[in-house]
């Protein structure tokens, strides 16, 4: 058996060494999680514009390309944000997968009988929900960004594309199920991230629970409402 003592020598970049540890990976998961939650919230709120009609959401989509106004060339700021988002997603996934394998290795034998006292459905299905949501995101990008999801698609007309896509019942159901799973994932994630980065105080811990409920509920209700609205004919063409 060995112990590790920090040795006094020149080191590699400290943050690479930090990421090598499991605690460091949890930090990265929390920070990228915050970025992804921020994106999800903005994405959901932006899409609410579909309730204001095609002009509203189509203009919103166009204005995303104009982010930064005349300060930067058109679409450049959007691309910087997209690259940041992809990087955050990649780091989140890499840390999640390596930690999951570490954790499986660390508990090789199962108990014959086990009653959990604190772990809940959300905390125990993070990796499964996360992988399903990641697969869903790939489909979602094909469906509504690249236009290769099988529905009628026209670049620059998100309202029409959304209606064409969500009119297909199996697709609408897939969106609903994936977003419910995302909500469960967010519930544990939004609570857990404070713990991972050490933002924790007995006075605020109850507040953290409410924050997690709130984030999960707001994003899920908003997102799930879109396919339902199309299926119910509230959001429709013409």
């Amino acid at each position: 058996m060995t112990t590790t003592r920090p040795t006094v020598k020149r080191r590699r970049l400290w943050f690479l060494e930090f990421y090598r540890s499991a605690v460091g990976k949890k930090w990265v998961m929390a920070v990228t999680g915050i970025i992804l939650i921020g994106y999800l919230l903005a994405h959901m709120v932006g899409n609410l514009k579909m309730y204001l009609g095609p002009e509203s959401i189509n203009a919103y989509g166009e204005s995303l390309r104009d982010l930064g106004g005349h300060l930067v060339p058109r679409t450049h700021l959007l691309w910087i944000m997209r690259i940041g988002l992809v990087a955050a997603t990649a780091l989140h996934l890499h840390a999640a997968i390596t930690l999951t394998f570490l954790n499986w290795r660390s508990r090789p034998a199962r108990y014959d009988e086990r009653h959990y006292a604190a772990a809940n459905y959300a905390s125990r299905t993070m990796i499964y929900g996360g992988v399903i949501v990641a697969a869903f995101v790939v489909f979602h990008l094909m469906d509504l960004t690249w236009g290769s999801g099988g529905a009628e698609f026209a670049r620059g007309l998100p309202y029409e594309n959304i209606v064409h896509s969500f009119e297909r019942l199996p697709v609408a159901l897939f969106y609903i199920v994936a977003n419910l799973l995302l909500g469960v994932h967010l519930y544990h994630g939004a609570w857990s991230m404070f713990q991972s980065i050490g933002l924790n105080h007995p006075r605020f811990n109850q507040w953290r629970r409410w924050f997690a409920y709130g984030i999960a509920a707001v994003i899920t209700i908003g997102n799930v409402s879109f396919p339902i609205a199309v299926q119910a004919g509230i959001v429709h063409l013409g």
Partner: protein
Amino acid sequence: MDLTLRVWRQSGPGDKGRFEEYPAKGIDEHMSFLEMLDIVNERLTLEGIEPIAFDHDCREGICGTCGVMVDGRPHGPWEGTATCQLHMRAYSDGDTITIEPWRAKGFPAIKDLVVDRRAFDRIIESGGFISVAAGSAPDANNTPIPQEAAEFAMDAAACIGCGACVAACPNGAAQLFVAAKYSHLSLLPQGQPERWTRAESMVDTMELYFGSCSNHGECEAACPKNISLDFIALLNRDYLRSKWRNRRLAGQKG
């Protein structure tokens, strides 16, 4: 009362292990759980069966030696107690009790209910101490410590190192143990000089044996000393700071 025990039997580290059932007849409700095991073992010995091996020492909940999974709960059904403090009045006539050892990669099996918890010692050796000039005892109150800091450190120092947190964790992580052992020193003035090497080396050593924390909270629920998850947050915070600060210390010597 008459009970049935379903006990994990494993002759040694290489053995696959299996459950065996033993009757435990005429058990008094005032007995402790370990006394019940003693009685069953006496009878097994008389029958020529190898007694059930289990760890135990002080039997008053302060040494951290005992600890088994009882009906799927570390240290049994009572909150905030070690296995030795569990008493048979928790059970009623006819119950079947399943007893398993702690199961985690960091705690290899030795025999029956006994596991090897030396990984905890390795973690303590790597930083769970303070260096002091040994000599005559210092004057009382020579080092002023705010009451709140003393209380908070004491909450962490209540850890008896039993390993229930690892046993309870679905990831086999030892974060609560390490956080408690880290915090009770690092919250006090005496623990400051070595604070950052302590954070780094205790976590790095922990990760040689155990899984990672995913904030299930099972450890806190299982802890016989009710140690709070808040200490894990403190450890996570200080680990990042240690990587940064130790880098600067390292740079001075080139």
